[in-house]
C-alpha cells in the first residue's frame, strides 16, 4: 500500500456492504466483511462469492442484497470451487477482449464452510492457483443452524452438540489450526487477523491479499454474541482480548516468510478472554481449574511455536 493507513479516509470511501442487512447486533461478521471490502481500490470491481452461512442468509436475501458488488452463492461446501469457476470464466472473457478493468474475486465463508465441509474445495482452489482471496470469518461454531460445534470450536467450549452436563464438559478436541494448513499450501499470501482497534491490521492484510496475484487466504476472528454468549456491546472488547491473550495471534506469511504483526504489550492470562463468555462458564466452576490451566498451556505452546516461525 502506497498511502499511510488512515481510518477516517478509508471510511469516507463509498460503502460496499451497505447497512440494513440482517446480521445480529454485535455480530463480528459484518465488521469483517465491510473491513475487507473497504480495502478494495475505489475504481476496482469485485465478485463476492459466499458459502452458506449466517452471512449469506443475512446479507443476501434474494432479491435483496447488501453488496454493491456482484454476488454469487451456490451451496455450503463449494464456495472456493464456485469462485474458481467465476475466475476462470473471467480469464476466458479477458483473453477474448470481452471484459476490461480490474475485477477481484473474494470469497467469504464461515468456519463451518471453511474448516469442515468446504475444506476440500478450498484446498483445491488454492493448489490450482486461482487469482482469488478466500476470507474465513471464524466464529468458531455453526451459528446459522443453532450453535453446533465445528472443527474450529476451541476445546472446552459448550455448543449444542458439545453440551455441558454430567457427562460432557464441552468440546474435547483442540481447534484445528487452519491458517497453518493454508501456509502448507505454499500460496503467495496467508494471514491471520481480527477487527481490532482502528482496523489497520485487517485493512492492510485484506489489501495485501486482494492485490497479491494468485490465491491468498485470510483467517479473521469474528466473535458471535449468540454463540459465545456475551453481551453484544462487547464485540470490540472480546476481539481485543483474543489478541492480547494470544488466543488469536496476528501474523502473516508472505511467500513462505512468517511475520508477526502484533505483540501484546502485556500478554494477558487466557482466563481474561474466557471469563466474559458463557460458552466457557463451566471452566470457572470449582474443580475445573485444570481446564483453564490446560487452555493456558495450549495457548502458550502455540504462541511459542509462532514466535519460532516469525523469528526464524
Amino acid at each position, binding site marked *: 500500500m502506497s498511502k499511510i493507513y488512515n481510518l477516517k479516509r478509508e471510511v469516507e470511501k463509498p460503502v460496499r456492504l451497505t447497512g440494513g442487512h440482517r446480521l445480529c447486533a454485535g455480530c463480528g461478521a459484518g465488521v469483517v466483511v465491510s473491513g475487507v471490502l473497504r480495502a478494495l481500490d475505489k475504481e476496482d470491481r469485485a465478485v463476492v462469492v459466499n458459502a452458506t452461512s449466517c452471512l449469506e442468509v443475512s446479507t443476501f436475501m434474494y432479491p435483496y442484497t447488501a453488496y454493491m458488488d456482484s454476488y454469487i452463492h451456490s451451496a455450503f461446501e463449494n464456495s472456493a470451487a464456485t469462485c474458481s469457476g467465476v475466475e476462470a470464466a473471467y480469464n476466458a472473457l479477458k483473453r477474448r477482449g470481452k471484459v476490461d478493468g480490474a475485477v477481484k474475486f473474494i470469497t467469504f465463508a464461515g468456519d463451518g464452510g471453511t474448516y*469442515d465441509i468446504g475444506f476440500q474445495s478450498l484446498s483445491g482452489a488454492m493448489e490450482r492457483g486461482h487469482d482469488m482471496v478466500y476470507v474465513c470469518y471464524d466464529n468458531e461454531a455453526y451459528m446459522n443452524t443453532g450453535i453446533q460445534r465445528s*472443527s474450529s470450536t476451541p476445546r472446552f467450549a459448550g455448543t449444542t*452438540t458439545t*453440551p455441558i*452436563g454430567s*457427562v460432557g464438559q464441552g468440546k474435547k478436541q483442540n481447534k484445528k489450526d487452519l491458517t497453518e494448513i493454508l501456509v502448507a499450501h505454499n500460496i503467495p499470501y496467508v494471514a491471520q487477523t481480527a477487527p481490532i482497534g482502528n482496523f489497520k491490521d485487517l485493512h492492510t492484510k485484506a489489501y495485501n491479499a486482494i492485490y497479491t496475484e494468485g490465491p491468498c487466504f485470510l483467517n479473521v476472528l469474528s466473535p458471535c454474541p449468540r454463540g459465545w454468549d456475551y453481551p453484544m456491546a462487547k464485540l470490540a472488547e472480546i476481539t481485543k482480548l483474543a489478541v492480547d491473550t494470544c488466543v488469536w495471534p496476528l501474523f502473516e506469511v508472505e511467500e513462505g516468510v512468517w511475520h508477526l504483526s502484533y505483540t501484546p504489550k502485556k500478554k494477558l492470562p487466557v482466563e481474561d478472554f474466557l471469563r466474559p463468555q458463557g460458552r466457557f462458564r463451566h471452566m470457572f466452576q470449582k474443580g475445573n481449574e485444570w481446564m483453564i490451566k490446560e487452555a493456558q498451556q495450549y495457548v502458550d505452546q502455540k504462541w511459542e511455536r509462532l514466535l519460532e516461525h516469525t523469528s526464524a
Partner: protein
Amino acid sequence: MERVLMKGNEALAEGAILAGCRGFFGYPITPSSEIAEYMARKMPKIGGVFVQAESELAAINMVYGGASTGARVMTASSSPGLSLKQEGISFISEAELPCLIVNVSRGGPGLGGIQPAQSDYFQATRGGGHGDYHTIVLAPSGSQEMMDFAMEAFELADKYRIPVMIMAEGTLGNIMEPILMREPVTKFSEKPWATTGCRGRKPNIVNTLHLGNEELESRNHQLFNKYQIIKENEKRADAFLVEDAEIVVVAFGIMSRIVKKAVIEARKKGVKAGLVRPVTLWPFPDEHIRTAAKNARLFLSVEISMGQMIQDIQLALAGRVPVEFYGRIGFTPNPEEILQEIMRLAEREGL
C-alpha cells in the same frame, strides 16, 4: 405408560434410542438439527456414540461403517443434505446394511427454502442415488409416529437388511405434541453377516464391487427379489371413509391430517369424500389405492410439491379412474382450500 410433550425431532431421536440405536452420525441442517442436538445430550449418558461429522458425506459413510458391524445406527438431515448423502445410501443399499436415515424435509430444488415440503418424494422412493435400489420409506404424520416409526424402522431394517428412510416434513420435526412413551426394545435379531471380529469363524466381507458380468447381474437379481418380498409384505396405508367414497383424496405425512379435516367437512356438505394415507411411500400401497377405487369417480392427490406421488397413484389405477392434483410449495395447503378443491371437483363431476 408415561405421557410427555415432545418436539417431533426429539420424539424421533428418543424412539431411535428406545429401539437400541447407539450410534448417531450427524451434520446440522435446519429443520433437522434438534435430532443431532438431542443425541449429543443423550448418547454419552447411555454409553452410545454421538459423532458430529464434518459434512453429510462423512456422516453417511460413518453410518456405512457403523452398520457394517451390525450396530443399530442412524443419521438425520434435511433435503439438500440428503442429496449429498445419496452416494453413501447407494453403497449401503448394495451392501445390504440395516440403518435409519431421516429426512426432515424442506423445499427445493437448489437452495430452495426451509419451509416444510414433500418434494423429495421421487428422491426417497426411486432410490435417490445411482443403481437399481430402493430404501423402505416411512412417512409419519405426528410426534407419536415420529417415535413409533423410528422404532419400527430399525425392525424393518434388520428384518430385510435394508436402509430405512423416514421422510417427515419440517413441520413434523418442529411441532410439539403429547406422546405416549414406549418401552425400550430388548430383543434383537442375530446378525451373522456383521463384521464383528472373525476369531473362530470365517471372515465376513462387506463389498459392493462386482466386476464380473454374471456376478453383477446376479447381485442385482438378488436385490430385486428382496424388493419383491418387501412389496408383498410391507405396503401400509390408512383408509378413512373410502368404502362409499366417490372422491378419494390421497395424502401422506402432515398433509394427511389436514386433508382428513377437509374430507369430514366435505361429507357434511353431502359430498362422498374419502382419504387414503400412504404410510409406506416405498413400497407404495397400490392395493390400498385400488381398493379405495371401488366407487370412486375421481382421485385427488394432495401434496406439498408440484406433484410427485400422483404418478404412483396413476400407476396403481392404470387409467381406471382419473387422478387430479392439488399441491403447493412454500405453503402447506390448509383444510379450507382443500375443501374448496374437493367441492369444485364434485360440482364439475356432478357429484
